[in-house]
């Protein structure tokens, strides 16, 4: 692809949608929505917040590439194109997810998927979608709008029961299941990534609230931040 930064409007119009590499060079450090919380220092110090047992571990996966894909799931050409780009078919079963290498894809609604890729690959993946896929679809880079928290530990289900009305019993919420739901007074995309491990995709502007919330509801279990 040509350098988007020097495209004329006419050239851009030809692409139908405006795609740009939004990530600057390595000289500019990005700040996750929880930059101010300085999780790295907490992790280094090994501080346990709340009960000494430390039954909850929290890890931020920051600055990933977040892409929202919308297309008609009955369009087999588009499904094939998505599979060519991602190396794995889009999950069509509601509330499921798939992973392939460093890519992961979450079913969000009958025509919507959230794709997470390494932060520096977002533009490349986006560009390949634009090259491979025809017809009506939308692909939106939302990398700056969210961050990912991984919660794990013996008490992680107990913790999440205090955050969301969703049933987390393993028979109902097995590994790989994903829901977009109420989280305290905000929302989160919750995916089970292990027996005792969950991934939350949370919105940037709510992330401080959710971080404070998680500290509060972890008091009975103890919260340890991991690097």
């Amino acid at each position: 692809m040509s350098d988007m930064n020097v495209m004329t409007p006419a050239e851009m119009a030809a692409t139908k949608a405006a795609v740009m590499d939004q990530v600057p060079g390595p000289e500019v450090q990005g700040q996750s929505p929880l930059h101010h919380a300085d999780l790295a220092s907490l992790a280094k110090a090994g501080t346990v917040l709340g009960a000494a047992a430390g039954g909850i571990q929290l890890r931020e996966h920051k600055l990933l590439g977040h892409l929202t894909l919308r297309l008609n799931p009955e369009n087999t050409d588009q499904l094939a194109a998505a599979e060519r780009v991602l190396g794995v078919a889009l999950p069509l079963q509601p509330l499921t997810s798939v992973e392939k290498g460093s890519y992961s894809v979450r079913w969000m609604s009958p025509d919507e998927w959230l794709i997470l890729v390494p932060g520096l690959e977002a533009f490349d993946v986006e560009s390949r979608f634009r090259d491979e896929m025809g017809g009506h679809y939308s692909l939106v880079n939302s990398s700056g709008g969210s961050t990912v928290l991984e919660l794990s530990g013996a008490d992680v289900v107990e913790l999440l029961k205090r955050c969301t009305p969703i049933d987390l019993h393993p028979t109902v919420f097995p590994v790989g299941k994903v829901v977009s739901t109420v989280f305290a007074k905000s929302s989160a995309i919750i995916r089970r990534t292990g027996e005792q491990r969950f991934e939350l995709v949370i919105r940037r502007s709510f992330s401080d609230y959710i971080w404070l919330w998680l500290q509060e509801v972890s008091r009975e279990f103890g919260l340890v931040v991991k690097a």
Partner: protein
Amino acid sequence: MTQPNRLQSGGRIDRSKPLTFTYNGKQYKGYQGDTLASAILANGIDVVSRSFKYSRPRGIVAAGAEEPNAILQLGASEATQVPNVRATQQELFNGLVSQATNGWPNVDTDVMSIIGKVGGKMMPPGFYYKTFMFPESLWNTYESLIRKAAGMGRSPLENDPDFYDNVNQHCDVLIVGAGPAGLAAALTVARSGARVILADEQNEFGGNLLSTKETLDGQPASAWVNAVTKELRSYDDVMLLPRSTVNGYHDHNFVTIHERCTDHLSDIAPVNQARQRLHRVRAKWVVLATGAHERPLVYSNNDVPGCMVSGAVSTYINRYGVVPGNALVVTTTNDYGYQSALDWHDAGRKVVAVVDTRANPVGERIEAARQRGIKIITGSAVIEVQGSKRVSGVSVATISADGNKVTGSVTKLGADTVATSGGWSPVIHLSSHTGSRPIWNDEIVGFVPGKTVQKQLTAGGINGCYHTGAVLLEGLNAGLEAVANVGLNAAEVVLPTAEDVKEGAPMTLFHIPHLKPTSQAPKQFVDYQTDVTAAGIELACREGFESIEHVKRYTAMGFGTDQGKLGNINGMAVAAKALNKTIPETGTTIFRPNYTPISFGAIAGRNCGALFDPKRYSAMHMWHVERGAKFEDVGQWKRPWYFPQAGENMQQSLDRECLAVRQSVGILDASTLGKIDIQGKDAREFLGRIYSNAWAKLAVGKCRYGLMCGEDGMVFDDGVSACLGENHFLMTTTTGGAARVLEWLELYHQTEWPELEVYFNTVTDHWSTLTISGPNSRKLLSELTDADVTNENFSFMDWKQITVAGVPARVFRISFTGELTFEINVQANYGMHVWKQLFKAGAQYNLTPYGTETMHILRAEKGFIIAGQDTDGSVHPFDLGMGWCVSNQKPFSYVGKRGMNRQDCIRENRKQLVGIKTKDPKVVIPEGAQAVLDPKAPIPMPMVGHVTSSYWSAHLGHSIAMGFIKGGLTKMGETVYYPLADGTVIEAEICSPIFLDPKGERQNV
């Protein structure tokens, strides 16, 4: 200190663990396993409260949730005060501090009692309605006096040091109550592999089995309880919740459980432990095994301390090793009432007599009493009690077979305790919560649950089934039904064999007759907590209240914190008799959540303090905080309001910020504006239908302001949208309207125009928006980009993709201030970097951060509206003078087109938005001020509009305002007046709302 009423042995208390507690300032001893009530009784304390209306001394009546009198205040410090604690449900702990709540100076010598006795005559039912409602203006005064006199406890004045928890639960079967029915049901469903929650309000499971000496399989019942509990505990999917009251049963089997986690341990919860937890349970099936409450009989002076329900007497003896008196008289209508006499006798104290209303009672318990030599007086009842602060004796008389009259002479017996049993009332509260009307059952003389739409089963006492063997079987059957209902296979459960006690039929009697008519007999209490008497209910019926719901509200029966658990059925019976109806004809009131009072803390959970509501922050928030910004709430966002410097007041700060933008360059964090990414070949068409103005010709690389209306034609949001690609637009919305607008777009797409190929995605959080505005903004931008940002290459209403401070950016040349402006959008992870780089480069231009208030002033100088401030859902674009933003040339219609062409919308003299210039340039009209044409007109003056925006403009050197005036667009130059609340009148001239640069030259350079 000795405990005069404590037995040497027996009960479920641990005598090796003595505890010290304080009641009304004095220290007492109790034991581990006691409730506060059992410890109070053990110490021989008779009076625990003064009654609500008559200030009569009251003692402990019951042993559980139904207790009406022992409602105490707990707390060792101001911060830990807890009102409304039932002493019968509060476990004793070392250092517990309790206090009776009514009675002044204390419950034993109550100066109010004189007033109460006099006032009592003056306080018939309906007293408040009759007396205190007028004049209405004084109601608040009356209420506080009544409250103080009534003394229902008080809330703490300091913050609660503990934290509370809310937790969501899901299960196949929720079983409420862990008595024999609940345990049998739980065992059945648990063995079948179901997900089970078993909740019970008591500290240990067993229910009524904890209060009796009965056996199961020939062993003490506790052995079976322990074995079942142990087995239940072994299942991963079984959650056992003791100390947990199921307090609300809501629609769709949503049930709330109030768990008291540490209330039994200490005054303040141990560190990092929640004091209480509210479980929010979604259960597929609910089994109510809530048991029954014993019903006291209604006789004269039945509230004197020492009068108790019979089962409570047995509970105190058998469970707590406490005999709450020395000489007992039992008055009963049924066999069960004899049990307290047997237990009392076996504890080694004197049973004076059992008085049975039945002429010829026959049954095993009666036989057992005879064998013990207990005197039995048949065909009689205790018609009156003597004593004030403690029972001193009783009057016994024979009564007619129908129980309506006293037929013989009165015999007086000496006694200090009266145990009463009028039968049992099933605990149907939870089944009532979801609207199910209870049904009267003559056989068991009580109401049982009616039909329900919930997935609900019932077992045991709630059905009027009271024999342990039958109760266990009902539990088992409910369990089997629940297992089948959730689609599992039932495992085998073998029930233990219960004792078979032969019983005679009970007599249906509630209200014991007196020698005198009810209205003249000494008070016969129906509802202890609200001081409702049988005479009061009869009076209410005589005064014309026929519906039981009206009787309830007129007398306040069942209005206490106990919801009339003891008294309601008696009250209905008294009303039925007075109305000459049957009880089913009279009907029953129903119960509402909560079953017993619940603390606000448990309801709030963690949603308090800093977590009361989410606070949303932009990527530059920390910079604003460090810069000392004052913040304004816009929705949940915290937006910088203004950035005061040392020594500045708000207006000085605003003046400085405004002048900086007009003279050099300022910067606004506009990240909170709603941003919606729109893709698809029909994106443009969609915009044309949803906005009132035209979008067909907007070229790629261009931006346009858009106005969004509801179907009624009224403006509800606005913003600039940019054409990013032929099939790609970025819409911006107001900060507060973002979510609503996205839903609006989805609504129209999904329901009206699904054929349009378009997708919407929120990107509000994804982009940081840094708005630099002012004549030097281009120079500043040039410092940070190599791109050509000259007016020739990058003109007004263009957008460009360029690199700013090393970060790829979309820059929009749009303006809300009227100045040359660049809105720099970068991925939010890099927002702070670019913001800081702008300040580094901007020092030479005195780059000045400004907040929402300055933004409001700057846009008002230009006459730009703010949707939600200058609009209120009742103004269409033409009212705003924005007809230029309406296109009627579109091939398809647009939302609001028909609405704004309604007759009322096109009539003359609608309120229209204009500028308002005060005659005195220094005066700023308060926003909201009403406009009149004649300030001397008599009140109420005809009002012709109001001010929506009003500011001091430092740049213009005079005040500016926008507002609505009827027919305002045709009244330019005319004078209007704004009379204020303080009597002054502001004179002003109607003008164009564009106060600055009407040709738009400043933004176009």
